[in-house]
């Protein structure tokens, strides 16, 4: 018996759709995939004809059993791998995947009385998996998402999140351009925003924060300032600023 996480599996691109002008959702069929929990990630490995290899980590939007893995990849300006995945990879092409990885940044039904999700940009991806898992479990405990992003055009999974409004409401926070008719101005998340738009400290929420390092750093400090216990805040930093 060999633990199936050792080593790399072959995945074939079975679905792709554009999320924004610079990001795509990619679905890989991975024979033998053991399933994964909400919040986990995979390593993706690409090999060039001369043997050169590059490995990058991506959070999964998909959750549960089955042999399909859904990632959302944003094209980074100086990236080596992301432009290839977003602009070039075609249906039927193969990559190697390792995982699922990471049991710490995981949401499971029944482990908390309520959950607050806070996303910065593409950090929404593992949190979408958590929203999907909450729905699949028919979980009645409160869960809500605060999604900080530049403009409405940058949103990942906007329609899907809108569809969950009754059970997992999303608060959209725009840092650059508010939408027409929007009732809030543009600007970064402040402690005041967090106090107004997230579950209160008295409810003792379990909080998941994911996004670029600077965003996670700032939000984590603000949450602790508001009175949340540091141990109640789980973070996933993406690197970059």
């Amino acid at each position, binding site marked *: 018996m060999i633990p199936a996480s050792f080593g790399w599996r072959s995945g074939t691109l079975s679905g792709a759709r554009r999320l924004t002008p610079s990001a795509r959702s990619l679905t890989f069929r991975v024979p033998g995939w053991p*399933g994964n929990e909400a919040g986990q990630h995979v390593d993706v490995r690409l090999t060039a004809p001369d043997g050169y290899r590059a490995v990058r980590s991506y959070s999964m939007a998909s959750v549960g059993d089955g042999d399909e893995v859904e990632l959302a990849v944003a094209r980074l300006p100086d990236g080596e791998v992301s432009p290839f995945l977003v602009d070039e990879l075609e249906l039927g092409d193969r990559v190697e995947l390792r*995982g699922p*990885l990471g*049991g*710490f940044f995981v949401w499971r039904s029944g482990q908390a009385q309520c959950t607050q999700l806070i996303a910065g940009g593409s950090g929404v991806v593992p949190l979408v998996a958590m929203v999907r898992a909450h729905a699949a479990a028919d979980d009645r405990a409160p869960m809500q998402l605060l999604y900080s992003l530049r403009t409405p055009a940058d949103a990942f999974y906007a329609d899907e999140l809108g569809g969950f409004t009754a059970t997992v409401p999303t608060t959209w926070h725009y840092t650059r351009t508010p939408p027409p008719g929007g009732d809030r101005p543009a600007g970064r998340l402040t402690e005041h925003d967090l106090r107004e738009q997230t579950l209160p400290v008295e409810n003792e929420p379990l909080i998941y924060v994911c996004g670029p390092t600077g965003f996670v750093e700032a939000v984590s400090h603000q949450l602790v300032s508001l009175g949340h216990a540091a141990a109640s805040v789980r973070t996933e930093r993406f690197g970059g600023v």
Partner: protein
Amino acid sequence: MPYLDGNVLAGAASDLFAFDLTTTEAQCASCYDIAPLGRSLVFGPPMGFVARCRSCDSVLIVVVERPEGHAFDARGLRWMRIGNDAHAAGEKIRP
């Protein structure tokens, strides 16, 4: 200097251990703080992973991936506790 969370150890660790390093509780040899390694502050990629104690900044473990394999230094830990339910990198082990 921005750091990453201990979650990033999961990939390299999956090559090394049959349990999930990020959910494993460990004690810092410097300040005796006890926390899951997922809570550590990770510096160093891509030269390696330098996981530091969230409480005192001391180095807990260093992992360097190289062509022949991995170098793993854990002198910054006094111990780790690996639960019976610590699946291989979070997944169920199948026979």
